[in-house]
């Protein structure tokens, strides 16, 4: 398995180079540059702007620019953010903990609800409770997350005052104190609930269907013939088999969640990677856009690798060599 992992990791290098080239080209092909929105053209000498463009190398051919960027990137220099006037790496590092916190919390919510609802519906299909769960799933799949987020803010933040509606922590709290951590969790709760409860729908339905399918398998009949309890048949024999396809989802999820739920983060003005990415694209902050994109590409490839490794663990029929 170690050998397999190393081989996969090495295989990522050419892939990442290709991605970097495509990403760079696409970013540069966006109309405009950082000066477009930042500088008031009526009060700045166009000559000066042109001078700055020349100085920053924006007029060079694209392959020259790419080479300059990639060589620096490989040395760990991700460039200076034109908007924030500080290294892109620092800005990103500031945001990562927020995004990870949101990602992990919503993932936990997704899985906990999916397991309970999916197991229950799968064990008692075509009953009223199954239909209620299916009804919820269809609603959650149909409602866009930004609508759900706005509704949630309206009710839980403005009407009921249960959760804060923006930011990641209350102002003025000292990092490291108990209140600080409680406040972080309090801030992450609502966006995480919105994300988690929305994405749990597809998991629940998937798990339910897989459990129903597995409950008709021959090995279930064997277990019954052995005198195994019905609850154990579902919670052990069937669940263990139905977990296998869910691993595929986990691989995708690691990526989408780390990339930050762009829209949810923006609505909650939650300072995560997704929100930063959207801002940076709007201001043509190349250094940040490129760095985040590369980071996400690496996460995507790693997420797939983790999913593949997990397959080998949950399904003994898959041997990784």
């Amino acid at each position, binding site marked *: 398995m170690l050998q397999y992992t190393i081989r996969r990791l090495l295989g990522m290098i050419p892939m990442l180079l290709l991605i970097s080239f495509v990403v760079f080209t696409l970013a540069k092909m966006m109309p405009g540059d950082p000066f477009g929105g930042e500088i008031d053209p009526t009060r700045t000498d166009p000559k000066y702007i042109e001078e700055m463009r020349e100085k920053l190398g924006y007029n060079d051919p694209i392959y020259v620019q790419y080479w300059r960027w990639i060589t620096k990137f490989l040395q760990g220099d991700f460039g200076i953010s034109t908007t924030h006037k500080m290294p892109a790496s620092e800005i990103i590092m500031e945001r990562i903990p927020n995004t990870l916190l949101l990602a992990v919390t919503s993932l936990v919510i997704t899985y906990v609800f999916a397991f309970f609802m999916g197991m229950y519906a799968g064990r008692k299909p075509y009953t009223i409770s199954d239909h209620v769960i299916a009804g919820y799933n269809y609603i959650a799949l149909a409602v866009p997350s930004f609508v759900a987020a706005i509704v949630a803010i309206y009710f839980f933040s403005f009407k009921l005052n249960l959760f804060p509606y923006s930011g990641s922590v209350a102002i003025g709290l000292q990092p490291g104190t108990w209140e600080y951590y409680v406040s972080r969790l309090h801030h992450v709760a609502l966006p995480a609930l919105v994300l988690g409860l929305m994405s749990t729908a597809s998991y629940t339905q998937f798990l339910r269907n897989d459990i129903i399918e597995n409950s008709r398998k021959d090995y279930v009949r*064997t277990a019954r013939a052995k*005198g195994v309890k019905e609850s154990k048949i579902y919670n052990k024999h069937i669940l*263990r088999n139905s977990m296998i396809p869910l691993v595929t989802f986990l691989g995708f999820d690691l990526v989408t969640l780390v990339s930050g739920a762009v829209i949810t983060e923006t609505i909650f003005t939650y300072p995560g990677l997704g929100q930063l990415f959207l801002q940076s694209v709007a201001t043509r902050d190349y250094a940040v856009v490129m760095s985040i994109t590369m980071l996400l590409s690496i996460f995507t490839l790693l997420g797939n690798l983790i999913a593949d490794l997990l397959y080998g663990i949950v399904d003994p029929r898959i041997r990784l060599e």
Partner: protein
Amino acid sequence: MSERDVSALLEVKDLETSFLINGKYYNAVDGVSLRVNRKQIVGIVGESGCGKSVMSLSIMNLLPKNISRIRRGEIVFEGKRIDHLGEEELNRIRGKEMAMIFQEPMTSLNPVFTIGSQIAEVFFTHTNLSKKEARQRSIELLRSVGIARPESVVNEYPHQLSGGMRQRVMIAMAIACRPKLLIADEPTTALDVTVQAQILELLKDIQATNEMAVMLITHDLGVVAEMCDEVIVMYAGKIVERADVHSLFYHPKHPYTKLLMESIPRMDREVETLSSIRGIVPSLAQMPRSGCRFAERCPKAMPECKIVTPKLTEHSPGHEVACLLYEESVPVHEVMK
């Protein structure tokens, strides 16, 4: 009479099991009565679709509850009715007092658990053995069913074993608690011919050493001749003939049994074509309401065969048949007419 009760291990009385098809229930097993004595091997034969498997699954109560149900009859095991037992009480019998092996060894084991843990589960369900003891017993069991290197096989997964080995594992699991009755539903159908012989040999050995009764379901009369004490021939959900193995093979009575015998490939005679029975078993929905269900395909069918339903009655001692060719089978009220 009292002696009879002691020897009977399993008694099925007038069993009717039906399936739900398009909103209506149709009987797949239609009024079957049989008994299996202790230490006896009873063979159940018939073509596919005759209700053999449904009957055996009814005994173990393993049929899918949403589409099937036992409509009538009694299943008595060791003098106790088990057909109306709840899941919990039933689970105390299943796997312990009576066990079952199935046709498909390839899919009958759970793919994600080791062989050892699947055998040990029987012990954890029915006994108080510790993990270590259960493992030790599992290894012994695997050795007793003829698996080489059982110490490593306990740690392997089903996909690492061949079909024959998997069926051996199924047998090991079934006999783990030394059940009094083993139901084997076409245990060799999915296996190679050479492996078939080995598995049958194994079943026979185990039956003798464990002194258990076996209900062997098969469509292979060769297997029956090899293994069984008594034979029950089923057709379209009903028993058409019952006899000890000797008289069935030497004096078959029912035309269906005779035709089944003729379709056995013979090695001692030169034949051009293998004879077969024309037609197929009628589907549940197309089952004739009255008359003999085999009449449609029977070469000796008489006009009354499609009207009068024959009754399973004793023709000669220990030999029962349900066919109008034998006057014993003609229902009493028909004779009086």
